């Protein structure tokens, strides 16, 4: 499992990517999907996820709709148009950052 410090700066990008691939998702579903996709190497904590989702919503990058399951209120998040644009920027930034780090740390690409 990777350290929370490494994941911290990538959380918004991860959430936006999942919402690009899925029409709408709720919090627990996001954490489970990330665990599944990364083979448990990345585990998003609730303490990081929910403040981030609220910030994304406040910034207008995601929209939310609620569904009532009896007394429970489930909040589904979807990507807004602004969120799609922001995701493209984030991906470009991340790709450039990874290339720079690979150069800086002299990391050779792995062939699996």
């Amino acid at each position, binding site marked *: 499992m990777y350290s929370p410090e490494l994941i911290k700066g990538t959380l918004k990008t991860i959430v936006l990517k999942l919402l690009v691939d899925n029409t709408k998702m709720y919090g627990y579903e996001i954490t489970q999907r990330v665990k599944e996709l990364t083979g448990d190497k990345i585990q998003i904590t*609730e303490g990081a996820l929910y403040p981030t989702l609220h910030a994304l919503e406040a910034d207008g990058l995601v929209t939310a709709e609620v569904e009532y399951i009896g*007394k429970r*209120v489930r*909040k589904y998040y979807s990507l807004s148009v602004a969120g799609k644009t922001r995701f493209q920027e984030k991906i470009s930034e991340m790709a450039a950052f990874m290339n720079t780090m690979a150069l800086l740390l002299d990391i050779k690409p792995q062939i699996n």
Partner: protein
Amino acid sequence: MTTITDQQIDFILGDLKGKGITTESLLNNLVDHICSIIEANLPADGDFEQYYNAILPSFYKQDIAELERATRLLVKVRRPFALLSRLQFIALLFGCAIAPCLIGIILGSTVTGTAGGRSLGTVMVWLTLYALLIVLVIWTTPDELDPLIPRRSKILLAAHPFVTILPTR
């Protein structure tokens, strides 16, 4: 697998509210998240309260209210201008307070000889001393007297709110 009852949802809601989760949207998110975990992992004959108390600490480092604080901070403080130390902030505050006074003093001195110029200069000197006094009070108030800006805190300048004091533990 367990199906969460309405009484159990009320229990979780009450517990989270009592522990400092007050933002309704966050509260709903957390209740749904906890219910989802319990439903996926607790056997039908499992002890709900025991399991709830066991999983809750995985949500936080010190207390669950830190999620409330983090959410409020991230939602309210967007596009920050700068994160300052206490010393930097007080220096900035003093600079802002003293700058108009300095301008006044300079203006006053350029019209020396006139009564208006002298009195303007005097007023500005007193205003400067007053600003210095306020900054000194903020700077020297001990932590135990609940200062406006606690020592070791950070000050975030942003569009809205303009100033946020972030106490460090």
